[in-house]
């Protein structure tokens, strides 16, 4: 009896997942095992060609580069988000500061990328300042390289890291830091030995929230990056729109999805065992859905 009621109530959610998650995923899986159509699309014929084509050195290079850039961007994001989340959690007017973190979300993603182009471009804001100060007469080329892409990625996903870190640090008992200082630890030691181990779940969540979407990034490397910063998201888009190899696009998408969900799964699996000993109540690990990127 009870079970049936539960089923009724979860029906909307099941429908939602079927239509927006399972069905597209099914289509991608199916496409990745079919033969490439002549002008895009697929032929209804089983083939592993899309997977063998992935061994292409170009794709491997880009995969490796994507991984490297994602790791660097995630680490940078966490390094910035950690002090931000900490200071928000300790401040008197948390609501105001959280509001300021969230404000940029109200502006469209693409508009914010163009804002960065306006800042970093050859005729951009930063170069105007450099010229005005007579530091250089020529414009400095800030855009269209890996550094610029990583910078903008960090900017884009910083709030996703700050929010989970804030909510974990907010639950942290700051008298533990006093106690550590009291027992002889320096300020730095008290953070490393007491704060960090107790906010591990927040760090993991923040890391996933940034790593997963960055791994699938598409728009930022397209608009900000150059030849050296092409990422997997761009290759997938190229296969769809330029090369018109839909099965290859699907197989690369599958690989990205499997890699990221695998990572999430691994971390989620080893989490509860560790946490159980540490806390009575686990704030819980929210696992982000592997995103195809935008």
């Amino acid at each position, binding site marked *: 009896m009870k079970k049936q009621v539960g089923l009724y109530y979860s029906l909307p959610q099941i429908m939602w997942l079927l239509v927006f998650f399972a069905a597209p995923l099914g289509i991608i899986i199916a496409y990745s095992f079919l033969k490439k159509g002549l002008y895009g699309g697929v032929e209804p014929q089983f083939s592993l060609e899309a997977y063998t084509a992935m061994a292409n050195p170009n794709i491997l290079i880009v995969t490796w580069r994507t991984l490297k850039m994602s790791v660097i961007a995630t680490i940078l994001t966490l390094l910035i988000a950690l002090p931000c989340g900490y200071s928000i959690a300790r401040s008197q007017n948390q609501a105001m500061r959280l509001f300021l973190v969230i404000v940029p979300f109200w502006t469209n993603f693409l508009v914010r990328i163009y804002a960065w182009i306006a800042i970093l471009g050859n005729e951009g804001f930063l170069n105007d300042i450099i010229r005005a100060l007579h530091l250089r007469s020529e414009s400095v080329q800030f855009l269209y390289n890996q550094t610029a892409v990583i910078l903008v990625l960090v900017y884009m996903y910083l709030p996703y890291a700050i929010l989970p870190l804030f909510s974990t640090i907010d639950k942290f008992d700051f008298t*533990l830091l*006093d*106690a550590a*200082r*009291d027992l002889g630890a320096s300020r730095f030691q008290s953070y490393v030995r007491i704060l960090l181990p*107790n906010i591990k779940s927040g760090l993991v969540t923040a890391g996933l929230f940034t790593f997963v979407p960055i791994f699938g990034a598409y728009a930022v490397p397209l608009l900000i990056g150059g030849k050296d910063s092409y990422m997997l998201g761009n290759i997938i888009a190229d296969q769809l729109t330029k090369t018109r190899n839909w099965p290859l696009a699907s197989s690369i998408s599958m690989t990205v999805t499997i890699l990221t969900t695998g990572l999430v799964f691994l971390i989620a699996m080893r989490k509860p065992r560790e946490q159980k*000993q*540490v806390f*009575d109540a686990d704030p819980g690990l929210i696992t982000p859905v592997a995103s195809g990127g935008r």
Partner: protein
Amino acid sequence: MKGADVDIVGVSKFFGSFQALKNVSLSISKGEFFSLLGPSGCGKTTVLRLIGGFEEPDSGTIAIEGKNVIGLPPDKRHCNTVFQSYALFPHLSVFENVAFPLRIRKIPQQLVREKVMRYLSLVQLEMHAAKKPSQLSGGQRQRVAIARALINEPSILLLDEPLSALDAKLRQHMLMELDAIHDKVGITFIYVTHDQQEALSVSDRIAVMNMGEVLQIGTPRQIYENPATEFVARFIGETNVFSLKILSIDGTKIYGEVDGLGPMFVDDETDAKPGETVLATIRPEKIRISADLPNTNGGRINVLHGIVAEPIYSGFQTKYVVQLDTGMMVTVYRQHANWSEGIPDIEWKDEVYLSFSASDMVIVEMHEQ
């Protein structure tokens, strides 16, 4: 004071525009069990945090073992704290919690093991070394916090209401254990509490605080028997307060009048002059209650008349609230030691006489507010 372990002189502390401490001076000797006693919010924790180095005073000086410690961070001060909430590290085992100060100092593993086990046995927790704090009872957690605070061999241990989270029975037990530990390690304890019984039973000296001020410092007996102000008299135990208009003074023999009650004798020192009004107090256990008019033999005994408004039986004694003819309520304790000796039972609405000696009365300062 010379040889003082902790010397606080004229310390004030503001939080924004709110003054949490007003010109606080304390001098605590080496090895003393010193208590800070006062109601919630009076600034007890703030005093401890100033000594521990978590806050800096806005004015005044603090010296520990003769050295000025203003500006010195907590990790550089020779005192350790048992926090109000214990502040045990939830991710570390009991062993590692106690070992934490040694790990910071990079003591070799062999020594760490020996020392931690020694301090765990001091608080009788050797059996629980491997547990996490969340797996311990309240009393056990508190003992871990004590062991952890003692392992660096501080010269001063600061304890912030360490028993407040425990139930009444356990609190009594832990208090005696604390006292025993104090005797064993022989260092200075500065103990914060809002429970007067706790403070009276273990302290060498007590400082009574209210609203950021120290009102009186003294031994438990001095504080109880000779309270300096009305607040101290009322906060430590119960007391009855009369507004006494002084008629004549002869040395410490004061003769005066209480409005509506008539003449009253008080034996105490006072700076007041005849014609002035002072507050005279008498403790409930120092009043005799009887159904018949007591024979005073012409001694300096005060006798009042009233009706029992409320008898409260509590096993070892009965507390009577007696309404005097003027309407004033007086509290009296009667011990049951003599219950069987033929003294008639006194019950609700009985007419009674209250008698007490002038020498048991104490004159206290009024509070200007």
